[in-house]
């Protein structure tokens, strides 16, 4: 494997500009995971997932929160600013352009199908975060249990993310403090 490139501010900005411009169909944390964890190895798996939790329980667009934290972690306040800016600017511009274009173009059913297909593929990126997580946690039953408990309470029982995390995370911390890694 090649050595990972240094996370310079310029490289962080370019990476986030790229994701911001190309992430059609969503799945943004999947893009971030591939760029910051799998490809460059700037952030560890566990650090990514922990930061993601923080980004999700605090108010705001989760991925924007996440990207600000990743930037801070790798290059301080300047990194946070550049990452956030690079990440938000292209979507803000393109959403306005797209709205104007679609206003003037009649849409065909096959276009709708193609756009839906983008979103389905983007879901595959998010599945990769889940898959890698299960692989990492498989030898630690309580981590699998914590993962399942969150999934069930949010996706199946429809508790809000905040409620679910506030109930389950403290239990998870208690167990983590008692069990040696």
């Amino acid at each position: 494997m090649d050595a990972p490139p240094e996370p310079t501010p310029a490289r962080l900005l370019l990476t986030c500009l790229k994701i911001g411009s190309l992430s059609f169909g969503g799945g943004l944390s999947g893009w971030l995971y591939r760029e910051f964890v799998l490809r460059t190895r700037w952030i560890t798996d566990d650090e990514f997932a922990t930061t993601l939790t923080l980004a999700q329980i605090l108010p705001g667009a989760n991925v924007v929160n996440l990207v600000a934290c990743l930037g801070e972690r790798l290059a301080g306040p300047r990194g946070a600013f550049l990452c956030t800016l690079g990440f938000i600017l292209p979507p803000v511009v393109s959403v306005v352009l797209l709205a104007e274009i679609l206003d003037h173009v009649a849409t065909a059913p096959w276009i709708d199908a193609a756009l839906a297909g983008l979103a389905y593929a983007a879901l595959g990126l998010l599945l990769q975060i889940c898959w890698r997580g299960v692989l990492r946690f498989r030898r630690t039953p309580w981590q699998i249990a914590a993962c399942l408990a969150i999934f069930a309470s949010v996706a199946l029982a429809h508790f809000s993310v905040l409620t679910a995390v506030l109930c389950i995370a403290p239990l998870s911390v208690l167990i983590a403090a008692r069990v040696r890694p």
Partner: protein
Amino acid sequence: MTAILDLLREMVPLSLVSFGGGTAIIAQLESIAVRQHGWMTAQEFLHAFAVTRVAPGPGTTLSTLIGWKVAGLSGALAASLAIYAPSTFLCYAVFRWSNGHRHSRWYQTLQRALAPVGVGLVAAGVLSLFRVAGGGLVAPLIACLVLLILELRPRTGILPMLALGAGLSVLWHLMP
């Protein structure tokens, strides 16, 4: 100018209570833009929502489109800033504080405890997105195919996967 002030007055507080992220505030945005201020019709709002699903980036760009509709370019910029800046700054501050303790033992413990929580949240998000996306069997099929390819060929780029998804979905649609 008053329109910009109205936008700021509505969006800044919304940013700070938007627990659950972009999807959680869609209902609130609709209430503000359609019912309270009449900035757009329900039809226009739905259309704007569809556009944000397709465009790259986070779905919160819905507020950008509301700003654009209200006051053009300056409205779009004001609304984007108002919806992103307060919450991002808050999260940044909390992260910066906790990151100072990154090497301490309690932080490592916290990380082992919260990593599975983060993964569980992503999994829950995936399921709710499958529900929203519709499409029946083709949606999980394409998503799993993409996962399989990414795992077997880790160097595969994401754009070819998006193209594959779009292509397969069109083929599926064209089938009798």
